[in-house]
């Protein structure tokens, strides 16, 4: 790998991309992109995808029944806790 960022191969540049993009730095100013149309196109596409993602899958409220089911299950669990199964006695009762 060369130390000059402008002389990176595409493979070397793309190895650095996750960190470059993930760090929040402006990757578009990287020297490699000045001379590499292919990597410029890649970065542009990734940017387009990241921007489009913000419009995906609008968030929605769950229906009220979900809370009703949760409350019901909590109640059942509490009732189960307050009526624990009768454990067998540690010592057998004396025979009559």
């Amino acid at each position, binding site marked *: 790998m060369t130390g000059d960022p402008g002389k990176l191969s595409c493979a070397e540049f793309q190895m650095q991309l996750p960190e470059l993009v993930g760090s929040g730095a402006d990757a578009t100013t990287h020297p490699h992109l000045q001379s590499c149309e292919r990597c410029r196109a890649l970065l542009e596409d990734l940017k387009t995808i990241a921007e489009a993602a913000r419009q995906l*899958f609008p*968030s929605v409220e*769950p229906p009220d029944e979900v809370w009703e089911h949760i409350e019901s299950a909590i109640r059942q669990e509490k009732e189960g806790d307050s009526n624990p199964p009768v454990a067998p006695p540690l010592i057998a009762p004396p025979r009559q």
Partner: protein
Amino acid sequence: MPNPFSPTQAPGRVRPSHETDPSTAAKAREGATPAPSGQGNASNGEILARAQAGDHQAFAQLYSLHKRRIYSLCLRMVGNVAEAEDLTQEAFLQLHRKIATFRGDSAFSTWLHRLAINVVLMQLRKKGLSLVSLDEATEPTPDEGPSRSFGAPDLTLTGAIDRLALERAVAELPAGYRLIFILHDVEGFEHNEIASMLDCSIGNSKSQLHKARLKLREALRAQNSQEEQP
């Protein structure tokens, strides 16, 4: 100019970090419904503390605060309404069982998301649908990634992407990639939050998000090229 790769507040989206500032929490809450107990002045911290002490009304308030985000995450991951409802129910039941163990080492929202993610992943594994498990997705895979991008420079995505096409492509991503993409690019979590949720390094989160975007690019380019064929 904002960095397009960084999760910024988009319309209808909540930044998770609002929890650190209770004064903005109400404003940031998406689709907030009135708190069930009517105790609107209590801070999130107070509500949490009461819920941890077993106060059912406080737990109902917590549900009200977080239901939309958890349900949306489940729905985005499984793509099925009935299943997402079941998963939401299970996530909040787990929360009810475990809430006393929350110690505040991370933001409550992050902790709750982690819990919900585990519920979702368990379901995906049960169904055998984890095309790539989360473990695989968060492990470095040197055979995948950049090299795939070298070919066909003439086939680039042009400008706007069709939303439905992208949603389809996201739905077809392996579960691990889909999860990281949804958490970061759709929901707006930061890499450090995702790393905490998924028990992976920040570098790993960045790397997997990059691979997810590369896979989406491939899928969209393939769709484009199919459409272009006579």
